[in-house]
């Protein structure tokens, strides 16, 4: 059975994309796996393979205006091509099963499949060829380059490189914010209760430094250690609040802000590793081993100082 697909992205599709980026109804962002006909494909049209995450499928079909092609959607449980390839759900077994199910050998005369390059971690091209008779060629990283690839039959060096531009990083912030919202607001409430409004705002600034400022400034910061870069941004975000505390001769409060914001932003920055397009598990393991204890000690020290300052103020009020 072949399903029809359109290259046009409707306003309703765009709303779905925005909601997915905000984490709303994320689990329904999937399309039915199977073989789709885009335009009016015939027995010589290319077969393009993608994941059943709506944003992946839409990126592909939205880039194919005016092209006649078959699109084979693998069941990746609603996960994008690269992540699914890493997990193996965008993999040779699923691909071979789809080829069989769709009766692809009877749909096209050629024996070529075009996979996105980022599907490669999950698929051994030579194994697919051996099992199905279809040869796998890897197209460009980005769907936006697929038309050019189909026209020339080759991907340039740029098309083969993954990038992580400002927009790629910005769209990730809402999900980071959502994940950090509860502990972040809890921390702000605790510091507000202990140290007043300045404490609450200082905590929020530290959390924001980790989830928003860090992704924005990522390529501009020196060094490669996420935790160190995050700690620096956290300390920077605490600076105005610490300066304010010092102007009131409250050095305990000033030190508390530096410690808490530095540790919180370092931790949040370290948690951004999985969202980047270049971090290796080896590097993350090294950072976790090196910085988990310092982050915990720094945070604990900061919170202890906040408690001391709060207690001093409370006793001053009582006496």
């Amino acid at each position, binding site marked *: 059975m072949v399903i029809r697909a359109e290259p046009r992205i409707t306003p309703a599709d765009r709303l779905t994309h925005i909601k997915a980026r905000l*984490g709303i109804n*994320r*689990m329904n962002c999937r399309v039915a796996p199977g073989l789709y006909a885009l335009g009016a494909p015939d027995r010589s049209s290319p077969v393009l393979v993608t994941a059943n995450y709506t944003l992946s499928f839409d990126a592909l079909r939205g880039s194919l205006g005016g092209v006649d092609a078959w699109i084979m959607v693998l069941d990746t*449980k*609603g*996960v994008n091509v*690269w*992540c*699914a*390839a*890493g*997990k193996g759900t965008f993999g040779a077994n699923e691909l071979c099963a789809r080829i069989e199910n769709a009766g692809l050998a009877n749909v096209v005369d050629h024996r070529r499949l075009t996979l996105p*390059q*980022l599907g*490669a*971690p*999950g*698929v*051994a*091209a*030579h194994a697919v060829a051996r099992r199905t008779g279809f040869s796998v060629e*890897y197209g460009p*990283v980005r769907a936006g380059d697929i038309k050019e690839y189909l026209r020339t039959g080759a991907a340039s*060096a740029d098309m*083969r*490189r*993954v990038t992580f531009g400002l927009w790629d990083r910005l769209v990730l912030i809402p*999900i980071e914010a959502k*994940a950090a919202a509860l502990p972040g607001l809890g921390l702000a409430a605790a510091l507000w209760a202990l140290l007043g409004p300045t404490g609450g705002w200082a905590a929020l600034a530290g959390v924001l430094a980790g989830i928003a400022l860090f992704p924005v400034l990522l390529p501009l910061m020196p060094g490669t250690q*996420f935790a160190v870069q995050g700690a620096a941004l956290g300390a920077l975000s605490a600076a105005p609040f610490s300066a304010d505390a010092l102007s009131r001769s409250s050095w305990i409060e000033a030190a508390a802000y530096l410690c808490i914001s530095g540790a919180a932003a370092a931790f949040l920055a*370290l*948690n951004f*590793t*999985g*969202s*980047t*397009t*270049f*971090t*290796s*598990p*080896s*590097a*993350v*393991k090294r*950072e*976790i081993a090196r910085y988990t204890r310092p982050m915990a000690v720094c945070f604990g020290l900061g919170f202890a100082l906040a408690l001391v300052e709060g207690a001093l103020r409370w006793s001053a009020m009582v006496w």
Partner: protein
Amino acid sequence: MVTETINTLRYDADHCIGCGMCWTVCPHAVFAEGDGVASLARAEACMECGACRMNCPSGAIEVESGVGCAAAMYAAALKGGGPSCGCETESCC
């Protein structure tokens, strides 16, 4: 000769047949076309995604690929088991 690197990537040029799959699939140009075989051009840029190892038909490449997410590694350390990102759940990254 096996080249040692700062990550888990290991490339044995003696086993390379020069098919070009590794420099095609690598998203960070870690491999480049060399003299009849692949050359390890930017080993330090490897993110251990495993695409090259998976698509090398001659077994010339070894790399331990896995989830590169600190949150997943912390979760694995707390709950036990291997790290896995929560991409089948509502809390997907």
